[in-house]
């Protein structure tokens, strides 16, 4: 109990004292996760809208694969990105390993299937609703995709937030490709892992509390958007 109380005390102190190191870790965590989510949303929403509108052989198989990839183990993604970016790998010449860019790449690989799969579920339903209207207007598939993405925007924001929730709490992949280097690639989750291994549990717990705070903030934003969406559902 004492340790938990200490952790809360340390967490508040760190936050209120504007500890430089803590804020740089939080800043990098946000930078990496928000960049990954932005790229994943651009890719995932396009894939989602495309698969909702286009029909071709293997369409269902792709959706099954995307659904399966939602549960992709982060360490496996980390390992794959590590092999690609390591000196002997195909993209080794870029020298990206142990940089925030490598961490963003790993998170993009991890989140894109999640964003795409959730987008398909949402946009397919919307497409089903609009289908006859679209066909009566003889719209191109591209015009249909644009309309679905616009009309489904509120739901897609929720999807993006779900992706952000996964990205900000992820540790396995970013640890492998980022290396948890102080002032360079250390983020919240890798810092927690490090402090735990060092035995400074109170500090690790304090960082955990701050991370949970982020997670709660994200969930609150989702709830707010959902309730707003319900009210505006028919907007």
């Amino acid at each position: 109990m004492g340790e938990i109380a200490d952790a809360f005390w340390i967490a508040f102190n760190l936050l209120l004292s504007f500890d430089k190191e803590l804020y740089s870790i939080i800043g990098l965590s946000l930078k990496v996760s928000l960049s990954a989510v932005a790229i994943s949303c651009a890719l995932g929403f396009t894939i989602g809208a495309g698969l909702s509108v286009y029909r071709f052989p293997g369409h269902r198989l792709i959706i099954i694969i995307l659904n399966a990839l939602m549960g992709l183990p982060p360490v496996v993604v980390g390992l794959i990105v590590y092999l690609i970016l390591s000196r002997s790998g195909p993209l080794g010449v870029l020298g990206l390993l142990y940089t925030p860019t490598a961490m963003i790449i790993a998170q993009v690989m991890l989140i894109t299937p999640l964003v795409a799969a959730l987008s398909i579920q949402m946009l397919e339903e919307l497409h089903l609703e609009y289908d006859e209207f679209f066909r009566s207007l003889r719209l191109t598939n591209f015009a249909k995709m644009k309309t679905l993405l616009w009309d489904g925007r509120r739901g897609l924001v929720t999807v993006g937030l779900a992706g952000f929730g996964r990205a900000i709490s992820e540790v396995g992949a970013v640890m492998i490709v980022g290396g948890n280097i102080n002032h360079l690639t250390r983020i919240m989750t890798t810092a927690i892992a490090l402090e735990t291994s060092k035995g400074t549990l109170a500090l690790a717990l304090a960082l955990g509390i701050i991370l949970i705070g982020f997670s709660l903030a994200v969930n609150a934003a989702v709830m707010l958007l959902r309730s707003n969406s319900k009210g505006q559902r028919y907007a």
Partner: protein
Amino acid sequence: MLDKTSEHSLQLPDPVRFRDVSLTINRQELIANINCTLEHTGVSVVMGPNGAGKSLFLRLLAGLLKPTSGTITGSYINAKPGTTSSLSMVFQDPVLLRRTAHANIAYVLHQQKCPEEQLAEKVGNALKTARLERQRETPARRLSGGEQQRLALARALVVRPAILLLDEATASLDPASTHIVEGMAADAAATGTKIIFVTHDVRQAKRVGDDILFIHEGRLLTHKSIHDFFRDPGSKEAQAYLDGRVPE
């Protein structure tokens, strides 16, 4: 009430022709060997009991379904929306975009590449026609059932289609909304749009129709003028339908 500023001269260059049109789904023949010609103008009413194939007939006409056999010809078939031979359709449950009433109408004009300077005026006129000016910024799906159907009809008419298909568009509306929808359809017909109106309401058919197509179990049993149809329905099934009986 309609936008008379359009440069389109409506009227189909040629009638719509069904030649031996059949539709089979899951080995069940739902539309059987329909032959008919729908003239350029006026209001054709499609009647028949539930499950007769009226909506399928309309969807075949709209190109939403392809016939298993036979041909449907008409200049509208390959026409782009908004061109002189285009087709619009209003469904029993209106399909409205998750946007405001104004944006719903603007959407089809955008798709038609309507110049921006004409857009506001056309949308305004369409909303006025549908008596939805006050609901201009209301999300479409928050409108009442009658208002939604009027919006769907206004959106269908704003592109000045040569053919307008109404699939039981007034089935769930109150008399006031039905009156407005019928008025909008009549105005459109008066300016040259061919209306094809599916309804169960015999009195409505008498009010709005010029000719009637009576469909029973996927077969077109009768195609007559309104006057002739109500004088002599032409089949025992149609007579039973008018009498409110199940045919023997």
